[in-house]
């Protein structure tokens, strides 16, 4: 049974966007801070640290969750995905990112990576989700720039393309 003292910094190893990586964390370090500060995961954005805004949303073992509401030590051995893993090695955007660009679904871009993770996670488990369900999923994210219009268009377009 792993036990970690409050002042101990332990090595946390995990898979980040397909690569095995590790960093040091004390028990109280938030997963969001760990990913950003120890693993340079710039696609994790911190917006509220109380689980409401959704900017820090990542996928943990496939599921979209708030990384500000998890501790780094809890992610030991987990498969973590962030929006940085969507684009190809050559930087080519994936279909969801392209749909976001085409539909002007982002302005400042701060909320975007979290939304991308919710969308891919949700459609992986609900490939036939309709507009209402997609809206419900997007309800877990705050965007202050776009009024959600472009986001909804992009997500609908992407969901339809995936089904096709």
């Amino acid at each position, binding site marked *: *049974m*792993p*036990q*970690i*003292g*409050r*002042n101990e910094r332990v090595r946390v190893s995990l898979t980040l966007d397909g690569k095995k990586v590790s960093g040091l964390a*004390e*028990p*109280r370090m*938030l997963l969001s*801070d760990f990913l950003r500060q120890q693993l340079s995961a710039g696609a994790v954005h911190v917006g509220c*640290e*109380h*689980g409401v805004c*959704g900017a820090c*949303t990542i996928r*943990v073992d496939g*599921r*979209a*969750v*708030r990384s*500000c*509401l*998890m*501790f780094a*030590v*809890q992610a*030991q051995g987990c498969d973590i995905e962030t929006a940085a893993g969507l684009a190809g090695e050559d930087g080519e955007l994936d279909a969801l990112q392209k749909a976001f660009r085409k539909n002007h679904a982002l302005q400042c871009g701060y909320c975007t990576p979290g939304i991308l993770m*919710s969308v891919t*996670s*949700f459609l992986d*488990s609900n490939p036939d989700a309709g507009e209402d369900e997609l809206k*419900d*999923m997007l*309800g*877990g994210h705050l965007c202050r720039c776009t009024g959600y219009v472009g986001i909804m268009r992009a997500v609908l377009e992407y969901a339809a393309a995936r089904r096709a």
Partner: protein
Amino acid sequence: MKPKPFDYVRAETLDEALDALARHGADARILAGGQSQVAMLNFRLIETEVLIDITRIEALDYIRIENGALEIGAATRQSDLKDWPGLAEKVPMLHAALPFIGHVQTRNRGTVCGSIAHSDPSSELPLCLAVLEGEVVLRSKRAERTLKAADFQLEMLTTARAPDEMITAVRFPLGDASAGHAFDEMNRRRGDFAIVSLAAVARQDSVRLGVGGVAGTPKVRNWSELRTGDIDEALNAFAWELGGHDDIHGTARYRRELVRRLGRQVIEEARSCRR
């Protein structure tokens, strides 16, 4: 904001968790989904010496039917319950209530038992537990005991759990075929804490109505016979009894108004979907 320091224990079995609880007692807290607790730790509203993480105890991650009840283990996520294929048929109230809980992103991590342990006055699952007369299974190194919802829920954020105990499972009685169920809540933004939440179970002539968000714990009222013409009067009496309170989202009066008006809606809906 960032949490205060704490020691971390990752329990891999129930025994390990109970050992750690026995050792640390009131100095320790169980960490399950953490969707309320971690936010409160971040705000430093909660401080704890030790966090015992039970999310990896596989034996506690289950949904099963046993002795006429749906039993849900302490590591089971709200999403898993929501997506459990038999839910609408077995416990229709939970099927109705789960979509109201936070968002898919928080349900993906939040646990059913964690929500009940946290006992937020506005939460959906404690209300379901109360109105369905469910049970909470508490384990410590000393013993196991089972408490009825009414005996478990004491005050706002306060339960009958002893410091060395943890919830290992909750049990919701299976819906009987003759009953109708309805759940609704009012909030200013979908997925937020309810200003008032309501759950109704209708049988033959009787109605059982639970209300969350107006008192420290869910409040339940039974009417063995409630004629349509008497609903308003009954709800008005109940609303006044509950009283309600003011906060920035609604006044006490508004809460009573919701008890009267949404109360009627959920009762009628429950009656209409009686099988």
